[in-house]
């Protein structure tokens, strides 16, 4: 079987080279038949890489320790789901998984070639070039089917205990779907630039693909955050680790693109800017992958140091050079149809939003790379950790939050002072009242900068929520009034439903904004966290906030994959028992590593988060660390709103069929021009 895997990878590489070469020649010679063979070769890549991935999974399930990768990332007692997850747990396997996802995206792109044959043919050549690179990696420096040297051990080293959690089975695929998904919009954008694509169809296609990639990336980031919170046991959800930062970089530029693309679609502006945002998003996806896999920066959960770094550097240089070359060559094609007319307009709010997102991306990148730069300049490394990132990024995030409130209510082209006053008077008053309410509840923003940030975050979130709700209510009322007297259609909720269905993208976007502010409220809670640590014997008490924890007992267990110890703690609130919690520590036999199983009791107001940190060797009493984390529930709830909002934005509008047909006719008319070449 391993030979079949190796062979499949070679076939995949050969097919990608063919898809690239034949696709390129087909465009130059205008040869449709040759182009069709390239497209089919592209589809063939999917089958080849699927077969190689299946072989690796098969080897994990059959405990084939003759493969070095399986030996290092699996063991006999590992549960089935984690054996499957072994595919992306190590360097080589995860690169193979990357290739497979890229092949999946490539398959969809090539199967949907009728959407615009010539554009897809160009995009297919670009994606083939990317496939060549990743297939080269898994065929040469990071071969997942390398054999175990010497005698084959009876059992494997096992999977890293930190990865043996359900969240880790879905977090990496989501993140990779996001990273790899950013390849498709890049391919369409570069293809459109290369062929000087007439019209705006390419930007619609690119936007939808970017939204798909962004959706997965957002899912991946939140799942990773949830995993860090529930598994790592330090009581936080974001540590500004280089691996986390690497995922944030393309997310920030992708978010900027999803906003500024509206200016191109509606007003024919910002074409150069959008093109480079797409290029940057893809380049940052690759750069992030390079960071986490090359050992350039040290990280809590990066892959082991390897020799694939130079390959990534060369690939990045080639891609960047290609982007610059075609941009310089075809720049005239990207001239704006309109210019910005006022600083107080929807367009300028998008521009400011973009600038802030890019400054945030720069700050994250700068902080991540500064230790390397410092070592290079001064000869010694420094640490750039959470204090730096928080100080730099929190003010930027607050400005962005302000723009989230202001932007959607500004008119295109120019907004008058009167309109500003009319739209913001009520939300502004509500926001100020929320600030007063916080002070009345005992929050003292003047006592500490973290309290100040939290108060401002909550006030701005209320401002955004008020503007979003007012938009829905106003629109819903107009439609309800219009439908007055028509049975059940005359109510505001039906009006709001119709409003959303008529412009899914706009109102889906509002739901996303609402999700963002719910998440931000969760972030604001960090200023008020508490923690304490205590050794607990039978009947001992630990107090935190309004909770009292009483140690009832502690137990031990032995399972094939691990042995465990756990404390049984009764939780009291105001003298009344409300729950029993079981913080646990496991010792994984194959890897010989310990890991914690956090016990968490989550409510809308706060999380009671308990960690079994070890036991006193003298008396065997467990040492329990308790965290009281306010508002964490809001972070995960906000993520749900963001996902639902993005899905809404991806659904076509209710009544746009007629309009679409007219637009399609116009675009179809433009295709012969495209076929005619430059």
């Amino acid at each position, binding site marked *: 079987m391993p030979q079949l895997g190796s062979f499949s990878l070679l076939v995949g590489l050969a097919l990608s080279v063919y898809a690239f070469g034949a696709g390129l020649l087909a465009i130059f010679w205008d040869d449709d038949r040759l182009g069709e063979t390239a497209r089919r070769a592209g589809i063939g890549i999917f089958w080849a890489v699927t077969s190689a991935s299946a072989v690796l999974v098969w080897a994990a399930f059959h405990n084939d320790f003759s493969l070095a990768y399986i030996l290092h990332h699996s063991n006999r007692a590992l549960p089935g789901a984690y054996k499957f997850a072994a595919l992306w747990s190590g360097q080589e396997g995860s690169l193979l998984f990357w290739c497979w996802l890229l092949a999946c995206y490539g398959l969809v792109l090539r199967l949907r070639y009728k959407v615009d044959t010539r554009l897809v043919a160009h995009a297919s050549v670009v994606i083939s070039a990317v496939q060549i690179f990743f297939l080269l990696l898994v065929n040469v420096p990071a071969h997942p089917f390398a054999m175990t040297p010497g005698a084959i051990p009876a059992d494997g080293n096992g999977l890293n205990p930190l990865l043996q959690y359900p969240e880790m089975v879905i977090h990496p695929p989501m993140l990779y779907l996001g990273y790899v998904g950013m390849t498709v919009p890049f391919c369409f954008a570069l293809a459109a630039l290369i062929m000087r694509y007439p019209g705006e169809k390419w930007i619609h296609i690119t936007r939808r693909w970017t939204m798909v990639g962004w959706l997965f990336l957002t899912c991946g980031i939140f799942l990773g955050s949830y995993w860090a919170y529930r598994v790592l046991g330090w009581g936080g959800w974001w540590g500004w680790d280089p691996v986390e930062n690497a995922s944030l970089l393309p997310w920030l530029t992708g978010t900027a693109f999803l906003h500024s693309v509206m200016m191109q679609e*509606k007003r024919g502006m910002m074409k150069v800017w959008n093109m480079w945002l797409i290029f940057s998003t893809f380049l940052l996806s690759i750069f992030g992958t390079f960071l986490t896999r090359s050992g350039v920066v040290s990280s809590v959960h990066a892959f082991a140091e390897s020799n694939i770094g130079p390959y990534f550097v060369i690939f990045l240089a080639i891609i960047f050079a290609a982007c610059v070359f075609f941009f310089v060559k075809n720049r005239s094609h990207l001239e704006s149809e309109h*210019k910005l007319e006022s600083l107080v307009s929807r367009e300028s709010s998008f521009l400011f939003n973009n600038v802030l997102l890019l400054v945030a991306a720069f700050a994250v990148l700068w902080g991540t790379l500064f230790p390397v730069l*410092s070592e290079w300049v001064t000869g010694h490394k420094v*640490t750039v950790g959470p204090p730096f990132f928080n100080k730099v990024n929190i003010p930027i995030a607050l400005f962005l939050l302000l723009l989230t409130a202001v932007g959607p209510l500004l008119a295109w082209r120019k907004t008058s002072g009167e309109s500003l006053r009319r739209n913001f008077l009520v939300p502004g008053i509500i926001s100020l009242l929320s600030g007063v309410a916080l002070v009345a509840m005992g929050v003292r923003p003047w006592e500490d900068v973290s309290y100040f940030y939290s108060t401002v975050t909550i006030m701005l979130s209320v401002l955004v929520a008020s503007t979003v709700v007012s938009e829905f209510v106003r629109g819903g009322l107009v439609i309800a009034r219009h439908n007055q007297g028509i049975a059940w259609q005359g109510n505001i909720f039906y009006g709001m439903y119709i409003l959303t269905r008529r412009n899914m993208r706009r109102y889906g976007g509002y739901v996303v904004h609402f999700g963002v502010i719910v998440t931000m409220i969760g972030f604001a809670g960090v200023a008020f966290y508490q923690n304490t640590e205590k050794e607990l014997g039978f009947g001992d008490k630990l107090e935190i906030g309004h909770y009292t924890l009483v140690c009832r007992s502690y137990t031990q267990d032995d399972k094939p994959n691990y042995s465990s110890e756990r404390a049984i703690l009764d939780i009291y609130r105001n003298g009344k028992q409300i729950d029993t919690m079981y913080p646990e*520590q496991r010792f994984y036999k194959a890897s010989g590593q310990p890991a914690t199983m956090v016990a968490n009791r989550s409510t809308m107001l706060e999380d009671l988060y308990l960690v079994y940190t070890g036991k006193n060797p003298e008396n065997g009493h467990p040492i329990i660390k308790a965290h009281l984390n306010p508002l964490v529930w809001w972070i995960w709830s906000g993520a749900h709103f963001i996902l639902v909002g993005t899905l809404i934005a991806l659904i076509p509008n209710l009544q746009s069929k007629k309009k679409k047909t007219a637009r399609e006719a116009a675009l179809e008319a433009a295709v012969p021009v495209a076929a005619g070449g430059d």
Partner: protein
Amino acid sequence: MSSRMGSQTTATVTPLRRIASHWGILLLLTSVLLLMGASGDTTGQRFDRLGHNLMCTCGCSQILLECNHVGCAVSEQMRKELKDALATGQSDDVILAGFVTKYGPTVLSAPTTTGFNRVAWIMPVVIFVAAVGGLVWVVRIWQRRSRMQLAAAPPLGAGGAGEELDEFRRRAREETEL
């Protein structure tokens, strides 16, 4: 034409100036309140703050108070050292300097504001100011150009005005559809 546009500009800027001045007052008040609130904190709060300014040196790359390394002897020892230093009544700077002497500069969780490390803090601010300033400057240039184009355009109402208006309506519908 130019005087009409001039009066339009004034009408738009006045409420904005008012808003800006309100924000300015708010910002000033906030700064004063923050300064008033910058008082000394308890030993527990100092431990928490300084513990978050230090890294665990066991190789886990985590903040000292957040090291989740099960049974980590290094973080345990470092926390004890921090508690002892706080008990002696040393200032924050002296305590942090003591850790740097013992564990090296990577023990600090953020760059200091001295020497080359200053660049780490300055660059994001420079980029922010340059980006926002550059944006305002570019928008102003675009505004000026668009006014000049508007002034140079033939007046409406001549032949074909109806078609032109229809075209403007179509564009307005398309641009405000979002």
